[in-house]
């Protein structure tokens, strides 16, 4: 199985949607690639991914996350990488936002739309968050 995911939003909810599916897929022996673009870049940004915002008015869910013992995004990202999930940051958005590869977690790749399409062309599951 091959799973291709586009992460285009930068909130905490978005991060969980992306990384829960990605780690579950990787644990199911799938080849997984995530393309981070626009605000989605926050999800792998060294500082930003430690304190991703909850949607406005939904801040009270913070408690629920703790109660349900949900792993942190940092943990999920390192788990995903450990299981071979490919993380691709979008070069064009990085240029627009003046971001460099060093601003992101170790082990990511940087590529353009064509690199993601090349990965996704034979994917069984394609998701966009």
């Amino acid at each position, binding site marked *: *199985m091959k799973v291709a995911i586009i992460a285009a939003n930068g909130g905490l909810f978005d991060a969980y949607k992306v990384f829960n599916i990605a*780690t*579950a897929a990787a*644990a*199911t022996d799938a080849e997984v690639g995530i393309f981070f673009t626009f605000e989605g870049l926050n999800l792998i940004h060294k500082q930003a991914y430690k304190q991703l915002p909850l949607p406005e008015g939904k801040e009270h869910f913070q408690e629920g996350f703790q109660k349900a*013992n*949900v792993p942190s995004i940092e943990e999920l990202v390192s788990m995903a990488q450990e*299981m071979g999930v490919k993380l691709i940051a979008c070069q064009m958005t990085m240029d627009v936002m003046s971001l460099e590869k060093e601003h992101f977690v170790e082990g990511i790749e940087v590529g353009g739309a064509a690199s993601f399409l090349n990965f996704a062309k034979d994917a069984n599951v394609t998701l966009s968050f």
Partner: protein
Amino acid sequence: MSITANYVLDAKGLACPMPIVKTKKAMTELLPGQVIEIQATDKGSTADLKAWAETTGNQYLGTIEEGITLKHYLRKASENEVKLERTYSDVVSLNELLTKIEGNEKITVLDVREPAEYAFGHIPGAKSIPLGELEQRLNELNQEDEIHIICRSGSRSDLAAKQLSKKGFKIIKNVVSGMKDWTGPVETENN
């Protein structure tokens, strides 16, 4: 009911997708054919582990609820069984076996699957000796009996049939395919 597992994974208190991720890791510690017990409190874990097993080709045996703890049992896929090379020629079909049982014929049904597989459903009255223990437990069987050996798919029972006939057992039948296609009566260990 108490079920023997080769490996116990504690995933209690963990939310999705952690039980799956931990299971995946733990599975690498198991040998093919071994059984893992996964303890979880995530209510979605039953459906998830069933689906996970199906996608990865492992075998989901069943789940026992103990208070808020769910104990899931999975058996790691074995390559031999996928290949399905049967060489023992004296075989009987599931229907033939069912007819014999319904006719109250004097036969012994020997189930050579793992104890956990047996616990979640076996032919009433079947004797459980896992393939790996057969050599040491031959004295529990009678050489003169008509012994029908069954497993899940017919591969382990094939090996067991060859072992027993080499040891001088008179009438040994391999039941094919196996419990995975059995539609006759079944009992579980807790009833």
